[in-house]
């Protein structure tokens, strides 16, 4: 694909930030001299990491309503639009999508926030540590039925998805028997849930909402997993899975697609996978991907469909980052309260297009590509403008307005339509709707 006009340096700088974080950060782009500076800025992990506000552990399953997850969603959206540790935000999103877990089944917001903290702790660290931690994560144990997987009644849900989606990938060389053997190794895990029989785990020193393996529920027999034999437990089985080259290749290929927007060719996938397996350093993999000229090539620019969450971040940044109080939707209705109305509008728009953080449609993760280009999804971009409860400040010069959205190379049609509109609010909306803003 050869673009009609070559990509400008400004657009390429914006591309680097859009891909390595979740927005264009217009105020940052304005101060960056070139692509190398943009890369250095996006990859800078020297600012201190954010701490997920977990709140007090609930005293029972129904002490919290699922809707209360909006507090964590709002906090997360604030991190996404903050220009610190940019690449961490991209990776946190990537791992949430990869290890997709939904509040719709887990039900307890505290558990989702706790999983989010686990993902955040490892997002830029070691994939091996992340995988070992996620496999025992209480929200994951509930989401993929790990808590009902016990010796004598093996539940294959986590075992299959772990091989197919989290590690080896479809076609990664495992059989139905490997699914069964992995599931046996994963058996026996339980969560201390206050107010439930499992609260007895407290007597064993397991804190509320933490997980542990119970030996008598674990299948202690020998397993034949991916050609290795042993009495593997969860950690042992994961080490076997990590030892297969397909795992590193699959993760490297998927992160390449996330960052570059294009599939890695076979040689690149092999090279990235080999290096990744050496130490499982996630930042090492990121750096190997962005060092490849493909990352900043013309073909990579605007090769991805912008997700609704990225659009929301972009709209908020373009409007100068006004507050968005999503927690207001959990308060009893005040019909005329503009903050509440705008938060409800955003929440319902994200819901109707199936794209709310912590609510992936299924274990396969969120839709992407043409799965985000349904007519209703395009139209509901307008709904996301409800995030702004008052009209945003809009510069007079259309080029300045486009720059606030991180857009520098736009078609004549877009430039003309935006330039002709006199009303500032509508001018802002037309940029948010433009084909250029629909991609990234």
């Amino acid at each position, binding site marked *: 694909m050869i673009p009609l006009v070559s990509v400008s340096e400004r657009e390429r700088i914006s591309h680097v930030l859009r891909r390595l974080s979740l927005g264009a950060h217009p105020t940052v782009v304005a101060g960056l001299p070139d692509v190398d500076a943009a890369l250095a800025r996006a990859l800078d992990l020297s600012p201190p990491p954010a701490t997920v506000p977990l709140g007090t552990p609930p005293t029972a399953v129904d002490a919290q309503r699922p809707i209360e997850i909006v507090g964590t969603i709002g906090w997360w959206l604030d991190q996404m639009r903050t220009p610190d540790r940019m690449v961490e935000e991209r990776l946190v999103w990537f791992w949430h999508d990869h290890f997709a877990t939904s509040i*719709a089944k887990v039900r307890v917001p505290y558990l989702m926030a706790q999983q989010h903290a686990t993902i955040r702790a490892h997002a830029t660290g070691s994939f091996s540590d992340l995988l070992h931690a996620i496999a025992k994560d209480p929200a994951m144990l509930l989401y993929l039925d790990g808590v009902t997987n016990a010796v004598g009644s093996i539940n294959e849900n986590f075992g*299959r998805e772990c091989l197919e989606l989290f590690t080896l990938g479809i076609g990664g060389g495992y059989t139905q028997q490997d699914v069964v053997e992995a599931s046996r190794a994963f058996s026996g895990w339980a969560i201390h849930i206050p107010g439930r029989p499992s609260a007895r785990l407290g007597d064993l020193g397991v804190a509320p909402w933490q997980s542990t393996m119970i030996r008598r529920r674990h299948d202690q027999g020998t397993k034949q997993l991916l050609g290795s034999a042993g009495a593997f437990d969860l950690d042992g089985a994961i080490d076997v899975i990590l030892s297969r080259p397909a795992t590193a290749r699959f993760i490297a290929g998927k992160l390449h697609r996330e960052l570059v927007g294009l599939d890695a060719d076979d040689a690149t996938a092999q090279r990235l996978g080999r290096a990744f397996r050496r130490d499982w350093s996630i930042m090492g993999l990121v750096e190997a991907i962005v060092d490849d000229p493909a990352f900043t090539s013309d073909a990579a620019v605007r090769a991805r469909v912008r997700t609704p969450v990225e659009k929301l971040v972009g709209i908020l940044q373009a409007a100068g980052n006004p507050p968005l109080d999503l927690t207001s939707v959990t308060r009893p209705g005040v019909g005329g309260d503009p903050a509440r109305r705008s938060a409800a509008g955003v929440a319902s728009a994200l819901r109707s297009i199936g794209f709310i953080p912590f609510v992936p449609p299924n274990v396969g993760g969120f839709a992407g590509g*043409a799965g985000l280009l349904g007519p209703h999804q395009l139209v509901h971009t307008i709904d996301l403008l409800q995030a702004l409860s008052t009209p945003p400040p809009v510069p007079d010069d259309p080029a300045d307005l486009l720059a606030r959205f991180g857009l520098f190379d736009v078609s004549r049609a877009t430039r003309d339509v935006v330039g002709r509109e006199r009303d500032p609010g*509508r001018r802002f909306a037309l940029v948010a709707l433009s084909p250029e803003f629909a*991609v990234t």
Partner: protein
Amino acid sequence: MSGRDLSRRAFLHGLGLGGAVIATGAYGVSITGPPAGASPTRHAGDLGDPRRGRTLVVLELAGGNDGLNTVVPMNDGTYHDLRPTLGVADAIDVDGEIGLHPELARLAQRYADDQVAIVEGLGYPEPDLSHFGSIAIWWSARGGAGRTGWLGAYLDGTVGFDDPLAAIGIGPSPSPALTGRSSFATTIADGSGLEPRTPTWLGSTETLLDQWADTAGPVRDASTLTEQVSRAVGLTVAARTDLARSLTGASRYDDEAQATGPRAYQDRTATESLALAAELTRSPNPPAVIYISGVGDYDTHQGQAERHPALLADVDAGIDGFFSALGERGRDAVIMTASEFGRRPGENGSGTDHGTANEHFLIGPNVRGGRYGERPSLSALDRGGNLVHTADFRSLYATVLEGWLDVDAEDLLGGDFERFEALR
């Protein structure tokens, strides 16, 4: 479509959403715009015009519906041995041999009225136990990823880009089953259709949408992703007005309730989506195809005793509501179920794991009621303890493509599959 002038047809023609866009579907499986030569090129009209006035409604039960507890082999001792805790003991006897789950009482009545075909043992060779692998096979009707959807191919060969409302998806994102190479289907999530909800400071959206279409401009050759988006924007704005005429507002939308109500993060129900399907079917210009997805989690590995009956109750209410809302017009509609696989006959303690062959339904006044195909034996399971299919699932597709949509199924499915004489 009536009322569309030639220039608009010419404008829309050839402006598809195929090409290089990676279509990661609801299941994350890519049905990409295929590389040239991967499947036959079709042009609008090759297969004739869609038979308007008739609607096929596909109800996708995602996750893998448990066919054994839906259409129950009541008198088979092996069934009760395999399902000591989850086995259905009080199925509604329909013919002395099989029974429908007690939550399907209205469907059972419709079966007695000769309006339900139960098609048994549907599957395909070398079954894929992955949700994503298997649903891609069901969506494409061919080998899985890298192809067009089976109904997308139907659109390619009938309306092409000329009618973005010939097929309507109801669900959170476009179904890859509707993805064609040179056609465009409209997907909506709810009764608000393609009507945006705007902040008060923005004022009216009416002219805004026309300006939006202007930013898209006339796209003739979509070689970049941005151009493909532009094409989709043009088709979206074109579809919006006609769709608004079809939606009477019977299923209006309450932002606050949707965002904060008790079901805030739950899937839409089959009942809600079938009500919307009925609204579209009884409109003056009904779509030829409605594809419903995202209506519940049928992946009952755990808690099946509570979860599965609730799901079936929703389906039962939805189907009944659909035909009640349509009244006489129900003659013009057939509902067909789809699901990536059935579930394992042996239970796992509190649920059932992924299976293979499955039971499906065709429902409507023009359906010739009864049982079709052959029930797989519970005494001759495969090595993984799963049912061995007795008929190819594409026979179900061939049945509706030829018997209801009046197109050549062999051409669309790339093979000659048995057709059930289940439609009048």
